[in-house]
């Protein structure tokens, strides 16, 4: 029973991750098409991050991922995901700070 669970559980989770990532890409596109200005930019960063994440998950399915060149590619994809996600969060934070007046009051007080 344990062996059965191990064999199928890993495969099911891996498949679900890919399926959920693809849905996330579709819905992120939906948000990008429905928004403008800085909100649109932040979601474009999120979209880029989820695309890079999905590519990295696909790469892990290949046994060739053990080769050094593909290991390096995988590491860079992880890095891009982190950077894009951070950029999206940063942009969203920036627009919220502008909306709630926090950034304007900082600028008026001479802070950057």
């Amino acid at each position, binding site marked *: 029973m344990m062996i059965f669970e*191990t*064999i*199928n*559980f*890993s*495969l099911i*989770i*891996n*498949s679900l991750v890919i399926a959920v990532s*693809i*849905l996330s890409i*579709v*819905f992120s*596109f*939906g948000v990008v*098409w*429905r*928004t*403008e*200005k*800085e*909100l649109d930019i932040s979601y474009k960063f999120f979209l880029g991050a989820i695309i890079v994440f999905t590519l990295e998950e696909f790469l892990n*399915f*290949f*046994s*060739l991922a053990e080769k050094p060149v593909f290991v390096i590619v995988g590491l860079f994809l992880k890095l891009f995901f982190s950077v894009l996600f951070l950029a999206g969060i940063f942009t969203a934070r920036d*627009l*919220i700070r*502008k*909306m*709630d007046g926090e950034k304007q009051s900082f600028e008026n007080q001479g802070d950057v």
Partner: protein
Amino acid sequence: MKKTVKMAKHFFSPQKVGRFFLFRRIVKYLGIATGVLVVLYVTVGISLGNGFLKNDLQKKYGRVAGATTLIMQILGPPNKPILSVFPLCQNNSPYLALSWTSDDQMDYFDIERDGSPLVSGIVENIYHDEAVLTSETHSYKVTAFNSLGQTASDEASGTVLGCELPPKPIDPTCVITRFHKTNLFDFSGELSTKERQPTFYGTTNMPHAKIEIIVLGKTDMIVETQANENGYWEWRPEIRFNYGDHTFWVTAVDPENGLRNKTASLKFGISRDEAGGENKKEEKKKKENLPSGATVPGASLPVPGISWPNLSVEVKNWGNIAYTGKTLSLETKMKNFDEKFIKAKLTYLLIDEDGKIALETYDDVSFFEGIPIKKTLSIPSAFKAGKYKILVETTYKGAFLSADNSFLLEEIPLFNLGGGVVITVGQVMDNLLWVILWLLLLLIIFLILLGNEYRTSRYAIIQVTEEMFRDKKFIS
């Protein structure tokens, strides 16, 4: 009818509105995708060549015109034997008794156990498999041979039952069952053949026994090989025997206990063609002068009192498994020589399941007593997966030495989906059409979802901006 025509016209209308617009789009793109798929499939099939398309279609859609295979039953090949397997005990030792139907059209039989050869050249229609342990289950298949062909029985299984008293330790056995085309079970007389590379067949009751072979005569050879999991062994010399008489000794050694071994031997001659003339007379004279020797399997001539170096080779890959495109690690050793070191030219031969040489390489080495020579062979990616054998050969003072070791060659998997599910390049190529179909299906589903999302976004009246969040009080 009118309503149907009206609906059809509306369906195929070029207008980009209406309830069927999306459905029309899907059908259109599906049609394009199918066309692309067919073109891609045919292009890939043509580029792969070698009848790939024909074989693939044949596999999936039945016979292709012009490739019909007609099977006829010609009188001659033996009838199918009907095999039965019974567990029995004798002298408190368990064994599996095999018996099968036979008739005049069957010359001899080969038996397989669990898919591997067990014994070759049986002439009776019974066999006792004593190399078994209590509670083991084995499946057997008997193949009947005659000059016109062979027929195999269906597989039959048997489970070994325990005997009431503990069985006696089984004495090691080693039997030579066949020499070239001659079965030795009911043979008496002098063995002779024109074939200069005859194959020797035999069996031992020790699975994976080390088989040590010595041939002395007009050609001297010292060889080490291995029996399979059923104790079956066969050996064909890599070089041709010189014409004349030879003596063949084979010793089966228990791999777990070197003191358990059994030797069998036989004398044989390699003769020239009938038109040999004087040579024939000379050889006949030589044969008459020879002492009577054992040509019956199981009997043994005294092993020659000579000391030959012992060559051995071992595959160091884990589990004796190598992968295509990766390396095969070997260790070769030579023992039992008097010199401080021996210079030798080693030939490494990689032999596939069909006995063909897949790879050949040479190395000049110096052997020191007991110190292994390490060698790494690169296995090309194009090699087919399967059972292989690495054979190492050299000569020492005119004697031919060789040793071999088996290993399994597997393809590097292309996909590792986790949980032990792997897909190899071969499996992808075998099911290329289905792989492309599934990938295309996933792509179409993705495009449909994306297309639907885009379509619904076009219904938006305005584009949302962050100012609206403030107005709607999403931001405090």
